[in-house]
């Protein structure tokens, strides 16, 4: 295929990647996320334009029923990779494709309804919002505390966004909070004054409640004691057995051993390139 201008060249490459992705998703019904050649470099304009490479050419497939644990030293880009998969960071290079949730979602564009997968990199903000609602769940390290909203409402929110009735959503939220040992007396309170571990458990509850087909977990057990780490590991394993495709970062080796079906090793970019 002749490639005349650089703009056309980029478009042609995208089409090739899209075609390869479609084939991969068609031939493998369990494939949920396909990331190829993911690179991320931060350019700090306020610091004179210094460039910080965080990821270099990372490939990752996420399939139903597996839990991929990202391992590597601090600064290797583990968190960065998860954030790129969630659309919280923009990948500098590479392509991410995700399974088309059109079967369950009514707000995904009709034009893509027949496609097995959707190009995530370069997707419109509107599409990413829809994909986060129906496909991608994310548990970050920190709870973004919204003033004045009760814990129960925070945890119920992903279900409310999916159209679940308020009463049922709150009941399921309560069940999950109870499972995570968050005392009932805290449910009506906003989590701003909770301990780190309590906030983290609220975060986890909110991340897991809607049974997203893909789960991205960034240190979900970091602030937890052994007992609660075990509860979270159990919840993750249950999600995986239900068919979720999970990628996670866990610093605690016991939890890793409990939840991982395989590991992906990342190295800091300078070391890898050098």
């Amino acid at each position, binding site marked *: 295929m002749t490639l005349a201008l650089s703009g056309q060249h980029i478009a042609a490459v995208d089409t090739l990647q899209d075609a390869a992705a479609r084939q991969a998703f068609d031939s493998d019904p369990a494939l949920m996320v396909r990331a190829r050649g993911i690179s991320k470099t931060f350019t700090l*304009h*306020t610091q004179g334009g210094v460039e910080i490479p965080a990821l270099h050419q990372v490939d990752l497939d996420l399939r139903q029923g597996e839990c991929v644990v990202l391992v590597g030293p601090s600064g290797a880009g583990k968190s960065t990779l998860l954030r790129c998969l969630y659309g919280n960071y923009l990948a500098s290079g590479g392509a991410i494709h995700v399974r088309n949730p059109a079967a369950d979602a009514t707000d995904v564009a009709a034009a893509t309804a027949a496609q097995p997968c959707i190009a995530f990199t370069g997707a419109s903000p*509107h599409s990413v919002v829809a994909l986060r609602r129906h496909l991608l769940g994310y548990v970050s390290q920190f709870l973004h505390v*919204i003033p004045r909203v009760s814990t129960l409402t925070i945890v119920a929110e992903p279900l409310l*966004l999916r159209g679940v009735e308020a009463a049922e959503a709150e009941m399921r939220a309560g069940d999950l909070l109870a499972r995570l040992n968050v005392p009932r007396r805290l449910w009506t309170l906003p989590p701003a004054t909770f301990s780190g571990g309590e906030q983290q458990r609220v975060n986890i509850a909110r991340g897991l409640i809607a049974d997203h087909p893909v789960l991205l977990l960034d240190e979900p057990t970091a602030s937890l004691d052994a007992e609660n780490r075990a509860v979270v590991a159990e919840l993750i394993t249950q999600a995986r057995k239900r068919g979720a495709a999970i990628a996670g970062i866990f610093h605690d080796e016991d939890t890793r051993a409990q939840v991982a079906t395989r590991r992906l090793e990342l190295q800091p970019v300078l070391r890898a390139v050098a």
Partner: protein
Amino acid sequence: MLNPLLQVRNLSKRYGSRIGCEDVSFDLYPGEVLCVVGESGSGKSTLLSTLALRLQADTGTLHYTSTEGDSIDLLSLSEPRRRLLMRTEWGFVEQNPRDGLRAGVSAGANIGEPLMAVGARHYGQIRATATQWMSRVELDTSRIDDLPASFSGGMQQRLQIARNLVTGPRLVFMDEPTAGLDVSVQARLLDLLRTLTSQLQLSALVVTHDIGVARLLAHRLMVMQHGRVVEAGLTDQVLDDPQHPYTQLLVSSVLPV
């Protein structure tokens, strides 16, 4: 609905030779909150006023999808039709609540008037609806017959929001809705706006210079500088991974609490 509610293409508004806003393009979907942030003079208020048809655009196109699904060309809308749209489907929350309320009538009347403007006639029902809305925006319902001037600034702002939302609009424009309010009042108001926009499936275009407000309220963010949109995307992405030098400057300038 899968079509955008509002489609903006290459919208520009100049003041003589000075740029107000230049070459702005975006789509807004039902149920989406879009914040426009930028410093003083960035063009964000000009953009909002142009989108709300208060200012005449110089170039570009602006299309709105009606409840029946038709695409309406807003820039060629007749004055009567424009006023009908503003009464029935749109709202505009002013930065200063006194600009958005009628000082001479009671709180209840301020909420009831828009209902009457769209045809409500039963006084008892209008008063009941006004009471419900006062309660929804956390105003003391026993004060339904008090004049707006007897309320605090934060209460007036909540009254203005009730006045705008009572007719069930699909699109609400907000110009710095929390500027000038105490932080505790601001928190309550943002919480209220978050809840209402989500419950009512409202689309909202919110202009603010406060990034914290954007983080809390908006799904999407547009950053303006010197009349142009320099960066746009998901709120969490623009704030956590800013690409443009100006956005990086804005984000790094926010004082931590």
